């Protein structure tokens, strides 16, 4: 299977339940060597061999970039998703040999920043685990605001508070604690960069308020990997390779294309990096776009689709693949 990155042969060295929804997985290289160095905010794509099926999901690296003896990711169980997180929770045990990609960073710190203001929601905390480690190691100035549903679901909140004390502020939904966002965004020193990772609604809210309060777009960074959504099966013709394929209800279009032996490039598999952008030759029906890559104009035009996360409903779809 093709990718934009080199692969790493790893073994699962530990599996640690963190709370009722989140489990942490540790990987080491099978050959005992060190893993590649990475930068805070990087992710790896984990290949999950589940019987006949291979899923490839991106997860942020959450260990310290200074420690390359192992990589760690945290996976939140999604009981209604397409099964990747359930596979990780149920089937991945210490000793299992897996394949992951080299790290890729699509959510990099802007090292020009005088201050890094971080906003996390839920499992969106994971890239900040690595970024705060990186900044703390080099005397960087950061402040983290972390929203979680309840204290018991505040994944790593205790660790972060222990490490960084008052540089971390927690907000619990069940106690009706809310970030006073406008006040926070209005009271930052010049040269601050804003980073947000969490549910789509939170990202949109923060980006909108930052724009309204005059934050330059280059200072607002966000990461949201869309998970491919399940949906009704649909048929696609691949014009270049002359194949006709069926996309199953639990399968992404990209996975169906790959299963047919066609290998488009990819990096994030979450609608962010733009690698798998595909031209539409013709269509009769409706696109369900879920990506953050194409412009709204592209979405309306019906000429392009991101097969990693987007789907189609209708009579016919022909792609340039």
């Amino acid at each position, binding site marked *: 299977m093709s990718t*934009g*990155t*080199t692969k790493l042969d790893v073994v699962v060295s530990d599996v640690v339940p963190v709370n009722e929804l989140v489990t942490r997985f540790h990987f080491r290289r099978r050959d005992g060597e060190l893993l*590649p*160095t*990475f*930068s805070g*905010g*990087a992710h790896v794509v984990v290949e999950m061999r589940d019987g006949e099926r291979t899923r490839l999901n991106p997860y942020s690296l959450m260990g310290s*970039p200074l420690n390359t003896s192992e990589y760690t990711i945290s996976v939140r169980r999604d009981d209604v998703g397409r099964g990747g997180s359930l596979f990780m929770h149920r089937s991945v045990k210490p000793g299992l040999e897996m394949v992951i990609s*080299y*790290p*890729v*960073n699509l959510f*990099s*710190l*802007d*090292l*020009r920043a005088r201050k890094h203001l971080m906003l996390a929601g839920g499992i969106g905390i994971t890239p900040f685990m690595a970024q705060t480690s*990186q900044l703390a190691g*080099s005397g960087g100035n950061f402040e983290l605001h972390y929203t979680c549903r309840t204290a018991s679901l505040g994944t790593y909140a205790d660790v972060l508070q222990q490490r960084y004390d008052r540089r971390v502020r927690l907000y619990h939904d069940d106690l009706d604690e809310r970030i006073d966002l406008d006040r926070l965004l209005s009271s930052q020193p010049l040269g601050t960069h804003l980073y947000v990772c969490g549910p789509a609604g939170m990202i949109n809210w923060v980006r909108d308020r930052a724009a309204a309060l005059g934050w330059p777009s*280059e200072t607002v960074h966000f990461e949201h990997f869309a998970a491919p959504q399940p949906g009704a099966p649909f048929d696609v013709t691949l014009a270049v390779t002359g194949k006709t394929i069926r996309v199953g209800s639990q399968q992404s279009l990209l996975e169906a294309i790959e299963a047919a032996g066609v290998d488009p490039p990819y*990096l994030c598999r979450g609608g962010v*990096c733009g*690698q798998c952008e595909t031209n539409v030759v013709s269509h009769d029906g409706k696109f369900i776009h879920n990506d953050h890559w194409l412009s709204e104009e592209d979405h309306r035009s019906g000429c392009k689709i991101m097969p990693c996360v987007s789907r189609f409903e209708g009579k016919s779809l022909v792609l340039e693949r």
Partner: protein
Amino acid sequence: MGITFRKETFRDDFTFRNSPEHIRRFPFPFHEDSYMYAVNIEPHVVGPKGSVLENLIDVDEHYVAEMQDRALVLAEDPLRCQSLPHMTLAGWDLLELLMEQQALGYPEHFTLTRDGDRWRWINRPLGIDDTFTFGDTSTLPYGPMEYITRQSQGDFCILDQRDGNLWMDAGMVTTQADWSLDFDIGMNFFEWHAPVPLAHEKGIFIRALKFLTNIQQGKPARRLNWTMTINPRLDTSPENYHKWGPDRTTVTPENVGDKVHLRVELQSFWRLPRSNGVVFPIRCYLIKMDELVTQPKWARRLHRVIRDLPEELATYKGLTRYRPTLVEWLSKLDDGSATSPGFGPD
């Protein structure tokens, strides 16, 4: 068996020469009898033994002399080496990359020993044996980028990646083909390429940027570029134009073979792991016409390429004034017979 480093100069008496083995390993940049821009980027993987691609960071017989020439340039003009404040981490990334690659490729000349963040670096050709703390700038005599690029052949541009663009925010540039780091520092990819003719119209820079911003860790890429230089001068900078510009008026039919040099840049592109920046080493190789035409295939092909080069490109590369003299000289070595495919000599 190690490399025998030549004692030679790239200025004043110009004693630079290539040994016969180095002539054959010269990275001749033309795979066919004509030349036009293309996005000629390929994976930077190890190539055949005895070629400049035998190691991903090449060290050759000119190493010591080139480092001495660099020191002279920096003594006259410290602004050839600059690093904006946010680029120090990328400098450490580059130090690690160059120490690892040089120690891997040339263990008889370079040794790197690591004990956590205590590193010991031995550079035998330059007589250096330093122990320092990785990440702690106070333990090195220079910043990390300057320290290691005073010990590595080629120019180095470190590009910060942000806002979907690449920014020239650090570099060591002393062997350049008429461009200035001091002028370009802080510019983005489109700004610093603005002077290049024809390529913008072809959309080459948009595609090239897309490629470069997606360069992945562990998967470097490379391309070749070329121009010509009169006398084997490494430092053909705008700052020193008054020193080398007039050389172009000195080419005569009698001295073409000695004075005119093909200048090839092996450019590679690497993702840096800690900073998420990209480093762009630009390694310059020089060969004088007398040396180049010892390979008859190269002589025939270079004649055809220079003769048929579009005028805009000849102007941009600064060949206009001596092109007729060069073409006339090369034509005597071109019997019109076919050249074999590929870059290498026959």
